[in-house]
């Protein structure tokens, strides 16, 4: 059965995050709290990297179950890591965990459990900074991901297939991304084809469309293009998503349209639940 390979240190898999850094990411995201889309996405990626590090932390340290690339596309296309990892593509998770660009002291008001709020600070590691300028060269970004994935699979033919997660807010400015998306998904391990999931961040108040199974209810051709570019969710992600309360079928795609803050986090959470870790 496909998408069931063990993920372990001896058989790791790869995550490639493609992050739209075009000028429009400066606009506020839809929803109640006005926050720049670029900030929301960078925050979500930083949180996810923390989450992955925690998930893979064992007695002796963080295990390299995953190798992670964060690729920005806007003015240029390339690694979006800052600090010691700057310029690097797929980085073993243990190195990611130990090398954030900085650790922010964030003041936070938390419930004290007795109905009140208390101010406390938390340490928040930051790997990528929000960036927003230039166009949306999605085709080039997908081709970049394809190169990373192809190289990865040459070295790891038996791995759980790599997962590419594309987070964008606008139409591609360098051509129709459909064929580039198809090309990414032609690269396969013995356990299945590379997965490509897409998330569209909204600037409007429109209701998010999460994990649809057809493009019927999508508002426009652009949304349908992104839907067409997205892989169906493999079994373990389906069951996890349905545990999270989503209506899921065999043809549900890894696609979110008009995402608000909460659905960005959910998308990353579900899209990286490859399979149980050991």
């Amino acid at each position, binding site marked *: 059965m496909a998408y069931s390979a063990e993920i372990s240190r001896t058989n790791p898999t790869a995550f490639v995050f493609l992050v739209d850094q075009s000028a429009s990411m400066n606009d506020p995201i839809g929803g109640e709290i006005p926050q720049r889309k670029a900030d929301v996405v960078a925050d979500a990626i930083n949180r996810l990297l923390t989450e992955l590090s925690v998930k*893979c*932390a064992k007695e002796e340290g963080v295990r390299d179950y995953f190798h992670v690339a964060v690729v920005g596309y806007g003015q240029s296309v390339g690694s979006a890591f800052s600090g010691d990892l700057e310029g690097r593509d797929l980085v073993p998770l243990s190195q990611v965990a*130990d090398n954030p660009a900085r650790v922010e002291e964030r003041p936070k008001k938390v419930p004290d*459990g007795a109905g009140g709020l208390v101010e*406390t600070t938390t*340490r928040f590691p930051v790997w990528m900074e929000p960036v927003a300028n230039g166009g949306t060269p999605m085709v080039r970004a997908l081709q970049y991901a394809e190169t990373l994935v192809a190289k990865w699979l040459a070295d790891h033919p038996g791995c759980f297939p790599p997962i590419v997660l594309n987070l964008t807010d606008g139409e591609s400015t360098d051509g129709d991304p459909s064929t580039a998306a198809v090309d990414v998904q032609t690269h396969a391990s013995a356990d299945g084809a590379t997965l490509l999931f897409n998330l569209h961040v909204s600037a409007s108040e429109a209701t998010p469309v999460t994990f649809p199974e057809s493009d019927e209810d999508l508002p426009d051709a652009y949304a349908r293009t992104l839907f067409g570019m997205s892989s169906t969710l493999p079994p373990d992600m389906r069951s996890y998503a349905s545990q999270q309360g989503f209506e899921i079928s065999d043809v549900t795609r890894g696609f979110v349209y008009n995402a608000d803050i909460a659905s960005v986090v959910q998308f990353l959470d579900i899209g990286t639940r490859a399979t149980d870790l050991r």
Partner: protein
Amino acid sequence: MVQFPSGAAYVEALQNTRLCFAEPDLKGAKVELDKLARPRPISGNFASVFSVTTAAGKRHAIKCFTREVADQTVRYRAISDHLNRVEGRWKVGFEYLQRGVLVEGRWYPVLKMDWVEGTGLTRWIEQHVHDQRALVGLAERFAALVADLADAGIAHGDLQHGNLLVASDGSLRLVDYDGMYVPALDGMKAAEMGHRNYQSPLRSDVDFRPDVDRFSAWVIYLSLVSVAADPALWGQLHQQGGEYLLLAEEDYTDPAGSSRFPILLDHQVPEVRELVARVRGMLGAPVTALPPLTPITFTTAQSSGTFRPVQPAAPLPPWMADHVLPTEPVPRARFVGRDSSLTAVALVAPLLVVGTVLLAVLAPAGVALTGVCGLLLWFASTFAVYRARQETRAKRREYARLDELDARLLDINQRLAVLTEEGDALAKSAAQRAASEKVLKAGLQERHRKETAAIDTEAQRQLASIMSRRGGMGAERKRELDQALADLRAEHVRQRLATVSIADAGLEGLGGKLVANLREAGIATAADFAGVNYVTNSQAQNKNPFFRLPSGLTVRVPGFGAVKASRLEDWRQKQEWIARNSQPTGLPDSLRRIIESRFAQRVRDLDELEQQVKASAMQQKALVNERFTADLVAIADQVRAANAVTAQRRVEHDRAVRRCHGEIEAARTAHLIAARETTAYDSITYPRFLRFAFTGR
């Protein structure tokens, strides 16, 4: 369903233990931190565990759950109650706290456990791989632990290397009771399925019974005993960093394709062979039919009675070179058991020598030759005795074994060479395929580009024609308006002229007769003729006037000479001039509108044509694009399928190569041992035998 916080959310909450804990001794307790000075988690599938030290200095493992476990409270209460009634050093004390940890304003349960000092099983084995006594001891203690659990009606549910800790005194601790079965939980489903590398391929979550640990127990026991018997197996079968001991899920699901089973099944130590054969036999059996672990009996670790382990020989593979103690020298083989017949044979020799010498001096050459023959015969027979000696046979056997091992190594190396060739061929064919796909795709792209360009060119041509027609329309419209005005004016003049009667004009010299003649020719008013042509008559030397009718015909009117005709023409021109003075200066609006609307319609027609051309081009392009995309997708499907096949082949190839390397390592070790053992027979030679025959030493 309750959503539990993520591991990272717990890491965040535990940054302030004064806030996040309710238990008095945990409030403000110190959490062990990681390199980023954040709480350091140890995470599993269901939970993250943190090391927390209270003000009093007591260290706890605080387990924070990241997923809901069905009936967790009930389970932990039942497990806790049951464990309280059971003895066992393996137990780890715990307390299930309902109001455990505060995250984002909500309380979640935690498991507050005693901190266990111990080494994980994998690391412990790595540290003790050459300590046979320790390994055998651990195997025995493990078997005893499994028996204790069975006696107590308990199943751990997830027996695996990560849940077995070895304390400094060598005793085992069992941790992580999330999936534990105790009798009070009978009828529930398993909370977890256990580690994939330790489970029978037939286990399901309905298998929640006192005997669910059996398969994993056999797997762990087998591994401990095998490594004790042959430390080289650890290097051959356990991949560093692998989440298993000697056998993994792929071996259970596909034993025929397994690279590890054959090495164990063919192992030279019988105990290893027997144990692994039992486990191999369990793979098809339903979980409920698996036998309980029955440990083998070790006389003692050092004795070589029932359990004769393989001794490692130097030089060793690099991974174990550090661990190995210098091996003792091989005891040398000697000839033993010099019986009387051998002594007798030996004694014949001096007699023969003396006899031969005497014969050579005293007897004729022929007789002396007999003596030499006797001597040769003696050498031949002693050599035959030497060859038949038990010591010599043993030596030959050792050398034969060495040859056999040489042959095996050669064979494996040949197979490896074939595999390497196959691997190269695989890479080459994949590269060729990728190249031909590129060509195919480039061809499609080129065709698509040409088709799109052709559509564009044709559309441009049509649009250019439309554009030029539209451009000419302004001049045409002006021309038409001018013409309409000219027509209108001409008609006005004509009508005016038609009202001016020649008869009424009273022109000089134009009497009734001439007027009548004119009427006869159809000319009554100024409108009835357009002018006069004069034709010179050569005979009469005068000019004859011909009246030009509006129809274009000319007519001769009797009685008209050049003079009168000219007068009439002048009159007509004057009348025309008068008529022109009152002609309209512009087109009436109605007429103008008719013309304008006709042109507006033509512009609209052109606009529509332009839209049609554009739409048709777009439609054609859409069709071309559709076909292009379909072609690309079809290629992509093929490529994906081919890539998957290649990946599968490469996985199989890599496995076969690993298997070869394992076999080579095993054969090399065996070869080293055998080679070392042959050195023991260095003293088993024919000259030594002769010395032995004479001296008994």
